[in-house]
């Protein structure tokens, strides 16, 4: 399918764009990055604390402790989403709360809460993966590509 080319801008449109760009509030990119880094890092540090808690106090080694750690993080994220706290943290931290596993839990649970009035199957069941679906699709695809590169690298690269 051929992509449609955009028609050239008229003088009035160009003038308006210039005028709008002047009054457009600038996005504080650096500050957003810093916030995302700090909050995302704090979530990961908290995850490390939970993992250490399981290693020190239960019969888990580093590898097996990651399963209950993820379960705890997901549980807390879902709970905070239900109480409406996670949204506020996300407003402040931006991508910092989206990247870790808690972001995925938030995406699923918030969709479920939002569509609960439409019924359990048609509402919650259908819409739960609407936002989380692309994460699974692109995550699996990326994992496949990386694994393929790693295998080929090991096969030909030594």
């Amino acid at each position: 399918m051929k992509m449609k080319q955009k028609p050239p801008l008229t003088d009035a449109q160009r003038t308006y764009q210039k005028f709008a760009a002047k009054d457009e509030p600038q996005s504080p990119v650096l500050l957003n990055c810093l916030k995302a880094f700090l909050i995302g890092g704090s979530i990961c540090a908290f995850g490390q604390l939970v993992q250490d808690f399981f290693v020190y106090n239960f019969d888990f080694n580093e590898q097996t402790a990651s399963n209950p750690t993820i379960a705890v993080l997901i549980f807390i994220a879902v709970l905070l989403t239900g109480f409406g706290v996670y949204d506020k943290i996300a407003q402040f931290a931006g991508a910092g709360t989206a990247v870790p596993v808690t972001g995925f839990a938030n995406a699923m649970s918030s969709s479920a809460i939002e569509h609960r009035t439409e019924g359990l199957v048609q509402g919650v069941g259908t819409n739960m993966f609407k936002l989380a679906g692309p994460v699974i699709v692109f995550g699996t695809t990326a994992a496949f590509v990386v694994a393929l590169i790693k295998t080929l690298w090991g096969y030909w690269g030594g």
Partner: protein
Amino acid sequence: MLVTMKVFPLRRILFCFMFLFLLVSCQAGDYPKKTVTLNEETVQAETLIQNIDPVTSAVAIHNEKELYAAAEVEHMARLRLESIRKEAHERLTDQWPEKTIFFSTDKKALLELRKLNNDLAFKSVSKKEIDKRLSKIEEYMKG
């Protein structure tokens, strides 16, 4: 700053910190922090491992036909854990070719080995108990 305070009320921040501190304080467990010198062979194995660059501490315990060892590495070196494990295993195998070497960088294995090391130094542990604990440590090493 005003916006921050509005989004995160102080009470919530305090609650989060209290929860964090609770977790940290629960972590101490009953694991000893230092390795005790048991015998010359053990010290030799520990020194051999500690000579590898990013290793910060190591513990080793000799059984009849096995050598169990674990090490802690610098945080920034955790990306090359596999090569560190390989190198340590090779060094120990070269030194004790007749023994089966079990080496790991797993935290739980390190903690349990250090605990056994301390128990062997200060308590009387039966042979059966040692074998039981070492086989459990072997399981931790395998993951």
